[in-house]
C-alpha cells in the first residue's frame, strides 16, 4: 500500500499534476477570499490569479460583491475595471468595504463583442489589478482568449454569467455557481462546478451579508422582539 503511495507521489512532479482525490497544490498565485469555508474548497486556498474565474448566478441576482469584495480590497491599489456592470456600482458602499472608489473604473460597452474587447484590453493594462466582466452571450473560444490574456498578464479575472451557461463547456479554471439559499437566515449557496480537484459533494453555505449588516439586523430583531414582549 505504502509502496503504491510512493509510486503515485506527486512530490517533485509538475505542479499541474495532482492526486484525483485532493485539491491541486498552489502552483499559481492566489488571493484569499476572506472566507475560511470557501478558501478550504478552492485549490491553493483562494482566488487564483492569472486564470479565468467564472461565477454563474440565477437571472436578476447579483451577489458577486459579497464574494469578491474582501479579495478585491486586498488585491492592491491599482484600478479595478468593471466591464458591463448590470447596475451602477455604489462607490461609497464599495469604498466603505475596502475597495477605494478611486480604483473603480466602470466601462459600459454596448454590445457583446465590445465587452469582450474591453475586457481583454483591461487585462493587458499594467495599472489594473482586477477585471470583473459581466458577459451574457459568449462562446468558449472567446473565453479562451480572455483566459490566455489573464494568464499572460497575471491578472485577477472574474466573469459573471447567467446560470444557463452551466451546461456549456468553458475554459475557466474555476467555475462557481452562486445563488441565494432557500434556507432561513440569508445564506449564500456556493457550489464549484469545476475546479482543479475532485468534484464538490455538497454546496457551501456562506453568510450572505457582511458582518456589519448582520449585526444591524440582529440588533433590530432584538429591539422588535423586546417591543413585542412589552406589548
Amino acid at each position: 500500500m505504502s509502496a503504491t503511495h510512493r509510486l503515485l507521489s506527486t512530490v517533485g512532479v509538475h505542479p499541474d499534476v495532482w492526486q484525483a482525490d485532493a485539491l491541486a497544490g498552489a502552483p499559481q498565485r492566489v488571493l484569499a477570499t476572506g472566507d475560511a469555508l470557501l478558501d478550504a474548497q478552492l485549490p491553493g486556498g483562494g482566488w487564483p490569479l492569472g486564470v479565468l474565474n467564472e461565477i454563474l448566478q440565477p437571472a436578476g441576482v447579483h451577489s458577486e460583491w459579497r464574494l469578491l469584495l474582501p479579495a478585491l480590497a486586498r488585491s492592491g491599489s491599482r484600478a479595478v475595471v468593471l466591464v458591463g456592470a448590470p447596475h451602477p456600482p455604489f462607490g461609497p458602499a464599495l469604498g466603505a468595504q475596502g475597495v477605494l472608489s478611486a480604483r473603480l473604473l466602470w466601462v459600459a460597452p454596448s454590445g457583446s463583442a465590445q465587452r469582450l474587447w474591453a475586457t481583454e484590453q483591461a487585462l493587458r493594462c499594467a495599472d489594473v489589478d482586477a477585471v470583473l466582466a459581466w458577459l451574457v452571450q459568449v462562446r468558449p473560444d472567446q473565453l479562451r482568449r480572455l483566459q490566455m490574456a489573464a494568464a499572460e498578464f497575471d491578472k485577477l479575472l472574474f466573469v459573471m454569467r447567467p446560470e444557463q451557461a452551466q451546461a456549456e463547456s468553458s475554459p475557466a479554471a474555476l467555475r462557481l455557481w452562486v445563488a441565494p439559499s432557500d434556507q432561513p437566515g440569508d445564506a449564500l449557496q456556493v457550489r464549484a462546478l469545476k475546479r482543479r480537484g475532485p468534484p464538490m459533494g455538497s454546496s457551501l453555505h456562506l453568510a450572505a451579508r457582511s458582518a456589519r449588516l448582520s449585526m444591524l439586523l440582529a440588533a433590530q430583531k432584538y429591539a422588535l422582539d423586546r417591543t413585542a414582549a412589552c406589548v
Partner: protein
Amino acid sequence: MHWIALQPASDAALADATTAWSWWALQFTPMVARVESALVMEVSASERLFGGSVALLARIFESNRPLALVEYAQGATSLIAFARLQCADAQAPTEHPIPADDLPLHTLAAARAHLPTLQRLGIANWGQLRALPRGGLVRRFGAGLVDALDCAYGQRAEVYPWLTLPEVFDAPLELAASVENASALLFGARRLLAQLQVWLRARQRGVLALELLWELDARRSNALHVDAHHNGGAQGRLELRTAEPTQDMAHLARLLSEQLARVTLPAPVLHLRMRSLQTQPLAGESLSLLPEDVRAGDSLHQLLERLSARLGRDQVRSVLLHADHRPECMQSWCAAVDAIKSGAAQAYSKRARGQFVLQEMPREALYPTWLLAMPLRLNVHQGLPQHHGPLTLLAGPQRLEAGWLEGDAALRDYYVARSKTAGLLWVYRERLGGQAAGVPASGAQAIWYLHGIFA
C-alpha cells in the same frame, strides 16, 4: 575636417526620409546641410565627444532604428565626400576611397555647366582641372569654378545654409493614389507618425496633441460638406490628444485608427498633413531593476484613451464622491479621461499611488453595493411593497430629509428588506410633504421605491 555625405534611400515607412535624416544627424553636429538630394554633415568637432570617428559612425548608422537604409561617404571636405558618394555605387565606401585628384569632373556641381568644353580640353578629373593655370581658368569659366575647387581642396571655408530642427512639427505628405475611405488614410498617417517620432526623439519631447489635416479633391462637388471633421472648406481635420506626453507611435496609431474609423470622407483625398499642437519635454524612462516596477502591459492612461476612443468617452467612467445625504447624489460617474486630465483622479497616476484622498465612507456605513440608476417604483399589496413577491422589512426606518434647498426635497424612509428571490434590497417609502413627521403613512398612500441591492 571630417565630412560625411548621406544619401537616404527613398523609404515607404517615412514621409520624407531626407528631412528625417537631417533631424537625426542634428543630434551629432550642428553643421548639417542639404546638397542637392543628399545631406552633408561636418563631424570633426563632435568626434571626441562620441568616442572617436569609428564609434560616432556606429552611432549614426547602427542605432537609427526608426530610419531607413542610407548610402554614405566620407571625405576631408563636403565636396569630396559628396563626390565620393556619387561614385560609390558598387564599392564599399570606406575600403578604398577614391583620391580627390581622381574624382570625375561631373561630381563637382560647379563644373557641370562646362563639362563638354572641359572634356574637349581633355580634362576628366579634379586633379587635371586643378593643374590648369588659375588666371586663365577664371577668365575662361568664371570665378565660381575656381572658388568651388578651392572649397573642394579645403583652401576656402565651406559655408552652407545650415539646417535646424523646427520648433513645430509640420509635415505634408502627398498620397500615391487618391483615398476615398478614411481608414485608408492610416497608411499615410503612419508614415507621418514615423517622421514625428524622429522629430520627437531629436527634440526629446513627447507629444500631447497633434492634428491630422487632409485636403479634399476640390473637383468633386460634394466637397462642401459639414460635419465634425469638415467645415465645408476643402480641408478636413482630426485632432488627437493624449493625457501624458508620449513618443509611443504604436499607441498613437491605434488611437488614430479608432478615430479615423468614424470619419466619412465626402471626397477623395490626395494630400495629408500632420502638425504637432502641443508637446512637452519627456523625462527619460526609469530603468528600475525592482521586479514590482517592471510590469508587462500598457499604462492606465493608454487603456483609458483606447477604450474611450472606441466606446465613446462617456462609456468609460470613474466615480467622484460628493458630500450629500441623498444616495443618488453621493456619487457621480463621469468620463474617466476627463477625470485624469483634470487631475481629480490623481490616484491613478503612478506618482500619487498610495496617497489617496481620504474621502471614503467610514467602514461602519451600511449602504448597498448596487444603486439603481433610477429608483424603481414598487407595487404595493396590503400595505407591503412587492418585488418578485412580497418583501419583508428587516431594518429601518432610516429617515432622510435633504435637498429642500435645491427645490426637490427628498423625504424618505429607508428600509432594508428581504426578497425571496433577489436577496436583501434597499427600499424607501416616500413621505409626502404634508404628513407630520412620525405619523406612518397609511398603506394606500405610501409610495415605495426600490433603490439599491445589497450584494
